[in-house]
C-alpha cells in the first residue's frame, strides 16, 4: 500500500505577518513547526503501516525551501520519504492552486491508495485544501475523521459531525482529513531523528509537475485578498472596578442586575437542545 500524507509548515507562534500590499502571508519570519493536525495524520499513516507490512508512507508538502524541515520531522515520526514542492512560481497560491500543485504531484508519484491530511492548518484555518485536492484527483474525501480502519480495497471512517458520528465506508483510493481525537502522536525517537537527518528530499517545481505558467501562485489563484484591517470594536461600555473587597459586591450586583433584567437568573427551559 502507498500512503501520501499532505503536511504543512506553519508559524509556531501567533506572530505571522501579512504583506499589507499583496495580502499574502509572510512565512519567512520566526519559528515554524509542523502543523499540529498533520502530526496526527503522519502518526495515523505510520500506524497503518505497522498493520500493513510493505506499506510506504510519503510526506508531501508545498512551501519555501525551509519547509524541508517539516518533511524531516515527518520522517523522524516514521514516514519513509518526503517530497518538497517548491518554486517561486508557487508563491501566493490560494487553496485551489495549492490543491492543483498537490494533485499534480500525487499523480506524478502514482498508484496511491490513501491520502491523509490534517483537517486544517493553524495558519489559514480553511480546511479546504484536502477536499479540493481529492476533487481534482476525482476520489472520495472523508473529512473530520476521528477513527479509521483500512483494508486493502476500502476504508471505514468515523466522521465527527455537529450532531453525531457518521460511519462511512469508501472505496480506495480516497483522501481522509483527520481531527485531533484520531490518535496521540508520540514524540519522535532519537533513532528516528538520526535516520531522518540523512534523508535528501527531492524538490519538484512547475516543470516537474507539467504545470503551465499562469495556473500557479498569486497569478493563478481565483481568490485575492483586497483588504486587511483590524476590526473596529466598539460598544458603549459601563465600567465597574473590583480591585478591593469593598468594590466586589457592587460588581457582582451589576452583573446580576443585567441577568435579572433579561430574566436569566432563574434556570428555565430557555436553552435549546
Amino acid at each position, binding site marked *: 500500500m502507498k500512503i501520501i500524507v499532505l503536511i504543512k509548515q506553519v508559524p509556531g507562534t501567533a506572530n*505571522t*505577518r*501579512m504583506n499589507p500590499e499583496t495580502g499574502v*502571508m509572510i512565512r519567512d519570519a520566526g519559528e515554524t513547526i509542523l502543523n499540529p493536525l498533520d502530526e496526527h495524520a503522519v502518526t495515523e499513516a505510520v500506524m497503518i503501516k505497522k498493520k500493513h507490512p510493505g506499506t510506504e508512507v510519503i510526506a508531501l508538502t508545498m512551501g519555501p525551501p525551509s519547509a524541508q524541515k517539516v518533511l524531516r520531522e515527518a520522517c523522524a515520526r516514521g514516514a519513509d520519504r518526503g517530497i518538497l514542492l517548491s518554486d517561486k512560481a508557487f508563491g501566493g497560491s490560494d*487553496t*485551489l492552486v495549492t490543491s492543483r500543485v498537490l494533485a499534480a504531484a500525487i499523480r506524478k508519484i502514482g498508484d496511491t491508495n490513501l491520502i491523509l491530511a490534517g483537517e486544517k492548518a*493553524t495558519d489559514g*484555518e480553511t480546511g*479546504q485544501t484536502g*477536499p479540493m485536492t481529492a*476533487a*481534482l484527483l*476525482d*476520489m*472520495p*474525501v*472523508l*473529512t473530520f475523521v476521528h477513527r479509521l480502519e483500512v483494508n486493502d480495497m476500502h476504508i*471505514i471512517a468515523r466522521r*465527527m*459531525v*455537529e450532531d*453525531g*458520528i*457518521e*460511519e*462511512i*465506508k*469508501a*472505496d480506495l483510493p*480516497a483522501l481522509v482529513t483527520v481531527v485531533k481525537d484520531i490518535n496521540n502522536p508520540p514524540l519522535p525517537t532519537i533513532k528516528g531523528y538520526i535516520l531522518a537527518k540523512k534523508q535528501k528530499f527531492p524538490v519538484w517545481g512547475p516543470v516537474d509537475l507539467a504545470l503551465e505558467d499562469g495556473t500557479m501562485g498569486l497569478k493563478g*489563484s481565483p*481568490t485575492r*485578498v*483586497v*483588504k*486587511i484591517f*483590524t*476590526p473596529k*470594536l*466598539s*460598544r458603549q*461600555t*459601563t465600567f*465597574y472596578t*473590583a*480591585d478591593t473587597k469593598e*468594590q*466586589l459586591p457592587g*460588581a*457582582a*450586583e451589576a452583573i*446580576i442586575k*443585567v*441577568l435579572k433584567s433579561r430574566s*436569566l437568573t432563574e*434556570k428555565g427551559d*430557555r*436553552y435549546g*437542545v
Partner: protein
Amino acid sequence: MESKQSVMILAEIRSQQVHDLTWEMLTWGRKLADKLGVQVDCVVLGIEQGNFQELIHWGADRVLAVTNGRPDGILATPAARLLVEIIRAEQPGIVIAPATTFGRTIMPITAARLATGLTADCTELDIDPKDNLLLQTRPAIGGNIMATIKTARTKPQMATVRPRSIKPDGFDHTRQGEVMIKQYDTANAWPETLLSFRHNEENDINLENADLVVAGGKGMKSKENYQQLEELAVLLGAGLGATRDAVEAGWAPFARQVGLTGKTVSPKVYIAAGVSGKIQHLAGILTSEYIIAINEDADSQIFKVADLGIIGDAPTVVTQLIQALKDLKTDGKEH
C-alpha cells in the same frame, strides 16, 4: 427580467432534514440579492420533501430540491456532484453555504470541480458597489486581523459562512416563491456508503443555542478556578465555554471552545471571565446581544466589545458572583 445571476444559498442538511441554520443563510442571501437586484435560489441537496414553503418565507425566491433518487444522497461526494450539476444549470453569480462539516466539505469539492475560488468561514459578506463583486470577510492569521477577499475572474464566487454570523431576519409568511424538484443521475460514481449514524447524547446544554453563556480564559489562572465557572453555569443554567488558551491548557475539552476554530455562540448574555479578547475568540461571540467582561487588565481588548466591564481579578469576581447568586436564591425562598 434579464438573465441576472442569482445568489444561490445551500441549505444545511442534518439527519436528512433542513436545519434551522438555513434561515441565517437565507438572511445573508436576501441581503446580497437585494443589493444586486437578483433572486435568491435555495438549494436543498439529497431530499425531495420538507417544509420548503418555510424557506420561501425566510427569503428564497426559488427552492431547488436536488436529488439523485438515492437515500444517502447527502454524503459529501455525491452531494457535491449534485451541487456542481445545479450550478452548471443555473449559473448563479454567488454560492454561499454554512461553514459546518457539511458545507466545509461539499463547497471545496464543488469549487475545485468548477475551478473557481472559495473563501472559508466568512463572518461578513457584502457587495462592492463599484463592481458588484462579493466582498468576503473573514478573520485571518489566528484571528488577529480581518481579511476581505474577492473572487474577480471566475464564477461563481463561493464562500462558506460562519453559523451565527447574522441573526435570522425578514421572515414573511406572505412571500411567494417556487419549489422545484430536480433529479440528476450521479450513479456512475458511487464510492461511499453510509453504514451508521450515532446521535450525540443530549446531556449537555447546547452551547450554540444557549441564551446565557459563561466562558473562561487564561485569566481564570488555574484549572480549579476554571471549574468555578462550571458551578456558576449550573447555578444559572448557562452554557459553559472556554477560549482556545483555556482548552490548550487542558482546563476544558475542545467541545467547549468558543471562537473561530470552535463554536459560535449567540446568547442574550455572554459572560467572559478572564478572557483577553483575541479576535480568534471574538469571532465566535460578536452576535451576542449583551457582553459582560471580567478582566484585571483594563486595556484588555475584550472590553472593546463589552457592554458591562468589570475590572478586577476574574476568579475573585466569579467567587463573589456565585455567592451573591446563592444568597439571592436563599432570600427568594424565605419570602
